[in-house]
């Protein structure tokens, strides 16, 4: 049974089609990197999986069950990470606010809840960090704290929306390492959205690429190709590999073409309106 499956899912927001009959399935224990340009629908896809966005067609299943809002099997780290007017509050209190935060009544921090919070903090090595106030820690440390918050309730599927945003390469690497360790130790499925493939390329099992209302899920070598990406971007895209790094470029940017040209084939498929490419569920 898949951790997350999209079956012919369509989503319209404000009259615009964000996803058009998208199908794919993420298996248990898989680390998926989700890529796509700004506005491609990464956040929308995650919110749909959480039951927060109405579908105009199709069905989403979590561990074989239809999505419901507040599904405890999903851990989530939103892209908009809260306002934190109280940035002087300790990281612990911020993380703890999510423990039982969906229930009613006064907050109850009993021994079991505190153990659970400590476990989540330990999973990302943030126990000491949590003692400091949120205003006193760096962006990378903050991501770690919020990551631990997503682990509360021991989810089977983790949706992480751009955890690398505004981190330098060193911190990006450490966040990716932590997430990879979570996958290995907890055997949970993880969808990790990002704007760049390279920080993730060694850690992920497969890549989910969004564009032009479509989604393609597959191994990096199968998805990150000129042909597939040209289709998703609706414009000619070239993929360049330098050693083990991959560069995705719009057609008119000329970077050492001759030396590094790779799988750049023309299939002329770069004009599309929404919908209707039969071979679009090219996931493998």
């Amino acid at each position, binding site marked *: 049974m898949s951790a997350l499956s999209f079956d012919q899912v369509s989503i319209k927001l404000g009259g615009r089609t964000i996803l058009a009959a998208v199908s794919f399935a993420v298996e248990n224990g898989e680390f998926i990197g989700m890529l796509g340009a700004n506005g491609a629908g990464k956040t929308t896809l995650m919110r749909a999986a959480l039951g927060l966005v109405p579908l105009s067609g199709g069905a989403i299943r979590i561990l074989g069950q239809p999505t419901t809002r507040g599904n405890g099997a999903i851990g989530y780290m939103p892209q908009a990470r*809260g306002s934190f*007017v109280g940035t002087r*509050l*300790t990281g612990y209190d911020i993380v703890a*606010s999510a423990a039982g*935060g969906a229930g009613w009544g006064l907050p109850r921090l009993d021994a079991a809840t505190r153990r659970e919070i400590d476990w989540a903090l330990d999973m990302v090595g943030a126990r000491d960090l949590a003692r400091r106030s949120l205003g006193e820690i760096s962006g990378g440390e903050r991501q770690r704290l919020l990551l631990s918050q997503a682990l509360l309730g021991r989810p089977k599927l983790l949706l992480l929306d751009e955890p690398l945003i505004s981190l330098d390469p060193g911190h990006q690497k450490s966040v990716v390492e932590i997430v990879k360790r979570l996958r290995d130790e907890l055997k949970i499925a993880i969808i990790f959205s990002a704007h760049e493939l390279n920080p993730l390329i060694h850690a992920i099992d497969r890549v989910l690429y969004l564009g032009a209302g479509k989604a393609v899920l597959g191994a990096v070598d199968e998805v990150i190709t000129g042909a597939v990406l040209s289709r998703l971007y609706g414009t000619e895209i070239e993929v360049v590999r330098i050693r083990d790094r991959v560069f995705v470029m719009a057609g008119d940017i000329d970077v050492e073409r001759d030396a590094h040209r790779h799988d750049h084939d023309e299939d002329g498929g770069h004009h599309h309106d929404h919908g209707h490419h039969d071979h679009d569920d090219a996931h493998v």
Partner: protein
Amino acid sequence: MAVIITTMAITTTTTPMFDYDFMRTAFAAAGIVAVLSGIVGFFLVLRGQTFAGHALSHVGFTGATGAVLFGLPPLAGLVGFTLLAGFGMGLLGEKFSERDVAIGMMLSLALGLGLLFLHFFTSYASQAAALLFGNVLGVDNQALLSLAILAVISLVALGFIARPLIFASLQSELAEARGVPLRFVSTAFLMIVAIAVSECAQIVGVLLVFTLMVGPAAAALSFTRRLYAAVALSAALALLEAWGGLTLAFYSDWPVSFWITALSGLVYFASLVNWGGIGRGAATPA
């Protein structure tokens, strides 16, 4: 000025403060309202909705003057109108209650309407002053009972929504994903704020509700980094400022509301100076 203070001090040494019935009532009323304001105000600050609270108090002014016009008790008008406004703001959504211009316009409109009501009742100038700047010394036993009942209801309601409220205040997207009904929580909260604001207006007046609802909470947030300690400290500071203000007013004969705002301002600005401070003790003004 010094002379007046001295003479007041002399007369009062002969008659202790608590020998007066109105002072005992005032202390009780100020105590109830301060604790409620300190706690509710803390969440108002945490949510960044202080301006919404301010606007609610102005709506309360309209309600109170309207009530007087129709021969009803001002507190009824205050509570009724602010509750309605809180409910409406909640329904219009988070977006509205954080939008400064919309709130500012509502605030002016309410105050203008209140002025119109006053216009029909020119003899109520002193009542207007009491509404605008408070009149804790005029609280009678009947009003005290109403304040106590409303405070208990608000605190029970706040206790009921505390968990999702804290969660949604800190991380609304995550809270929404975990199934917190954001709209319901924020509407319920604004209605609790409406009651707290109405009570606060009885003590310090609609123009000065910030002094008990925002000042202590903001100070508490800079004195401690722990959430629950901050809530408790906010309530304690509000209580201290309210009672301190009453005491100073009794011995100086200056207005109570002035003293409360003075103490609240002092504590708040002291909290800014004591930046990374941890000690609770530092919060009390000398």
